[in-house]
């Protein structure tokens, strides 16, 4: 095959390869990506200056250097990152050696593999659409190779039509093809880049940094009613230990077996919780989880822990009861939750005394403290001033600007000074209801910290000092869009225009959220258990039934497609023959039937014998027909004449 004639094909191919490797700039080590780009550009130049292309020796040297480069970056070829780099490099090298049509095909196939490797990094709907588009271009390249006069737009159109026609069967196979988990030895350990999220310790400012992230953490779909906003507390890590500045989890959780059995009252909420990939194996259940799948366990702090890999997306069926009584407190808990780093300062003891912490029951003190937050000049802000030394003292008596973590920390500290067991609970609060999808979306900006106080006859009881200072935060949910755009925690936008724009933005975000939710749920997460569940709801229970259904559906679609693709738009019978057949039919009605094997002339003779009055017309029609059918030259007028004669023919 001559390359000159196929320049267009090569340009096409190079462009689609550029498109397909572009997103890999984040995943392939920079030296390798630069190497690949160099080869691609070299090949592009080679289209117009073929003499610049490398000869065999140079290609060999390039291959050796590519292998060295690969080895220096990855030390192997197995695994996702190394494999991707390998295929990208191979693609680049193969580009320089396009000699035959076969090479074009090989490059095309390599490009498909590189396209697939894209999905190992990102599975968003946008990436899928992008890859689909590039696949269309790759197919169009194949169409161009197989056309003698390649044209860009028709080739793209053909490729698109083929893809559209292939979609029904693809979907059927996708739904019915059995998903089996790969055996352990086939899996590669991959390290993930750090994700943002709640950390296992609480420092001033650690949660407010999340306040600016609209990254999705999890979604919740309720079976029945959705709990009101002020009950949407998604329980995460519990911080009991403090050094006065930093709050950390208690590592010793052996007291779990001494815990009292909690009592649950009121209506329970049933829901499906879909976690996005996380770094920590925490599952944020609605306070307080009652029943949960076997893959989870509840620790001594009533937090759900995932036993498996948190890096995967996962779905859990959980039931939670918002009203509960945890019963008595164990000795360890008591000790842990009264711990103070040092003697409280004089100002603090004075404050506790002022709020009647020492002489009144715990409930009275709590009310007084919450009231103190409300009535005194305290402010709620996402960006509080820095409090390096004695943060609690500074916050309570000097700055009085703080985020939920400041209030929670100060609250617990004051409780402990008054000898009341208390601890900080981290997690998420609220969640935006996606009206289209009917589920709650909880984002990093919903990160929150609140307080648990152990009360006699009530057990661990939740209090939220943030609710006292900024009740909107709890009642109305964070306005993430505004928070993102201005960096200010704001709940009631006063400017009407902004509010309009925000509501429009909110709608768009919700629509997108619904689409994305369906995508995650039905495409990305359609594996093993989910597939089994969905198929058995359709009455397909085992592999055999799956195979039958698969074959049946594909067969049916094939028949429909074959009819659709192969139906002939124009009658295959040539025009003149069709007209002549009309004449024969007319004669058949008159009693003269054309025999098989009888020539037109013989038939004409018979007609003339039987109906001498028609002789002239029959002869004219026969002559015209023979001329049109067998003679080399005829005109369009002959067609018109034949048509007219046949139409007017009567016996």
């Amino acid at each position, binding site marked *: 095959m001559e390359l000159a004639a196929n320049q267009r094909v090569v340009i096409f191919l190079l462009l689609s390869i550029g498109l397909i490797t572009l997103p890999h700039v984040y995943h392939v080590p920079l030296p390798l990506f630069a190497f690949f780009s160099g080869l691609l550009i070299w090949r592009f130049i080679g289209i117009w200056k073929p003499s610049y292309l490398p000869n065999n020796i140079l290609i060999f040297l390039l291959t050796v250097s590519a292998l060295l480069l690969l080895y220096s970056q990855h030390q192997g070829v197995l695994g996702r990152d190394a494999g991707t780099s390998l295929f990208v490099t191979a693609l680049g090298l193969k580009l320089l050696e396009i000699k035959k049509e076969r090479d074009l095909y090989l490059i095309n196939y390599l490009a498909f593999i590189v396209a697939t490797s894209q999905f190992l990094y990102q599975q968003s709907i946008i990436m899928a659409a992008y890859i689909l588009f590039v*696949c269309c271009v790759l197919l169009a390249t194949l*169409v161009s190779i*197989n056309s003698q006069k390649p044209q860009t737009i028709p080739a793209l159109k053909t490729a698109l039509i083929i893809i559209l026609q292939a979609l029904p069967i693809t979907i059927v196979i996708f739904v019915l093809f059995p998903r089996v988990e790969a055996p352990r030895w086939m899996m590669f350990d991959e390290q993930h880049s750090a994700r943002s999220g709640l950390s296992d310790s609480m420092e001033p400012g650690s949660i407010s940094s999340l306040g600016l992230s609209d990254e999705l953490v999890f979604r919740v779909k309720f079976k029945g009613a959705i709990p009101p906003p002020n009950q949407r507390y998604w329980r995460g890590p519990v911080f009991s230990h403090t050094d006065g500045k930093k709050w950390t989890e208690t590592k010793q959780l052996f007291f779990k077996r001494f815990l009292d059995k909690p009592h649950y009252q009121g209506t329970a909420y049933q829901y499906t919780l879909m976690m996005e990939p996380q770094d920590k194996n925490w599952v944020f259940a609605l306070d307080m989880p009652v029943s949960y799948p076997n893959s989870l366990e509840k620790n001594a702090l009533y937090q759900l822990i995932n036993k498996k890999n948190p890096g995967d997306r996962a779905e859990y069926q959980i039931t939670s009861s918002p009203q509960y009584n945890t019963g008595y407190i164990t000795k360890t808990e008591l000790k842990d939750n009264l711990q103070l780093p040092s003697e409280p300062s004089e100002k603090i003891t004075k404050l506790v005394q002022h709020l009647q912490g020492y002489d009144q029951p715990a409930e009275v003190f709590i009310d007084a403290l919450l009231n103190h937050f409300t009535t005194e000049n305290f402010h709620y802000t996402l960006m509080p001033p820095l409090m390096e030394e004695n943060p609690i003292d500074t916050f309570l008596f000097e700055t009085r600007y703080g985020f939920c973590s400041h209030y929670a920390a100060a609250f617990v500290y004051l409780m402990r000074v008054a000898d009341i067991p208390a601890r900080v609970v981290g997690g998420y609060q609220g969640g935006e209801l996606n009206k289209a999808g009917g589920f709650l979306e909880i984002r990093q900006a919903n990160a929150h910290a609140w307080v648990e106080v152990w009360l006699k006859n009530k057990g661990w009881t939740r209090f939220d000092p943030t609710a006292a200072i900024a009740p909107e935060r709890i009642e109305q949910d964070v306005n993430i869009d505004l928070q993102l755009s201005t960096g200010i925690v704001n709940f009631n936008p006063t400017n009407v225009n902004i509010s309009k724009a925000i509501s429009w933005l909110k709608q768009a975000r919700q629509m997108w959220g619904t689409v994305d939710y369906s995508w995650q749920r039905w*495409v990305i997460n359609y594996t093993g258990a989910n597939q089994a569940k969905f198929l058995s709801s359709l009455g397909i229970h085992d592999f055999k039934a799956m195979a039958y259904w698969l074959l049946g559906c594909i067969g049916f679609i094939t028949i429909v497609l074959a009819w659709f693709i192969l139906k002939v738009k124009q009658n295959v019978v040539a025009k003149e023959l069709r007209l002549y057949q009309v004449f024969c039919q007319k004669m058949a009605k008159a009693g003269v039937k054309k025999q098989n094997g009888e020539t037109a002339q013989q038939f004409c003779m018979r007609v003339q014998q039987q109906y001498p009055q028609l002789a002239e017309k029959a002869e004219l029609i026969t002559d015209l027909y023979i001329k049109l059918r067998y003679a080399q030259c005829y005109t369009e007028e002959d067609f018109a004449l034949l048509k007219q004669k046949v139409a007017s023919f009567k016996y």
Partner: protein
Amino acid sequence: MTDLNLKQRFKLSRFIKGEKTAVKRIVLNQRCIFILPTKRGLGFVVLISLLLLIAFVYNNNLAYLLAFLLASIFFITILHTFKSLANLVLTVGQSQPVFSGESAGFEIIVENLTKQARHNLQAHLQQKVDFTLSTQEKRRITLYSETVKRGWQDISTVTLSSTYPLGLFRAWSPLHFSAKVLVYPKPNIVELPFPEAAGAEINLLNNPVAKKGSDDFYGLKEYQAGDSIKHIHWKAFAKGQGLFSKQYDGNDLSELWLNYEHTPGHNVEERLSQLSRWVIDAEKMGLQYGFKIPGMTIEPNHGKPHYEQCLQALALF
């Protein structure tokens, strides 16, 4: 076409040579179109398996989706490839007699009655001919076949094929047409003088050999295969006017009898070859020539029909 029984239906020769029933006009349908994956198509299957493996190892649903998409594209392509040949109408056109050793050209008329354009068609006899057909287009293509033996030569199987759209499958249709071409004996290269010395059979009014070089140049005629190189009007050719042969006027001057028995040659073919040469030369020079071969005698005459009759007699001897 007649119905086939099961054994005939799966006979291998049907897939390569086409059905035995030779016809003049064929509409390509599922009965005569065969499809198999090409090597590239098999490569595509390997690609799909590789993608499935990646999807399986990483349990990645989008990789599965892409693999399934390619698999169903592979499947759908069968229909498209079939469609690239289906409903084409092929008719045999005319073919001119040739001298043995020359390529015989068979004319095939391919007609696309549908609205769908055919982007990549190949007709294959001994060489490949690539062509395309747009909507409702009719095209004549000429396929050449080497000739080695005189007599009637059948057009062997013409294979029409296409790999459109993706090159993953090749649809082909072996067609067995009832067309044949007449192959004349190859004219001897050595130009022997006409058999003047052979005696009674030759009745020369004038000596044609002497006449041959003389001036009674009669006119020019378009070059035809078999014309002697000596008679080509090279001046005209050099001027770019095309190939012409000079014709010499010898009309009514002589009556030449060509007799098989007195033709030099070691075997039948050599003698026929020599006769063929003489017939060509005699026609060129405008002689009245008669013809005598065992079992057949043709009275002396002149002109194209006579010329063709003589050569045909030689071809079929």
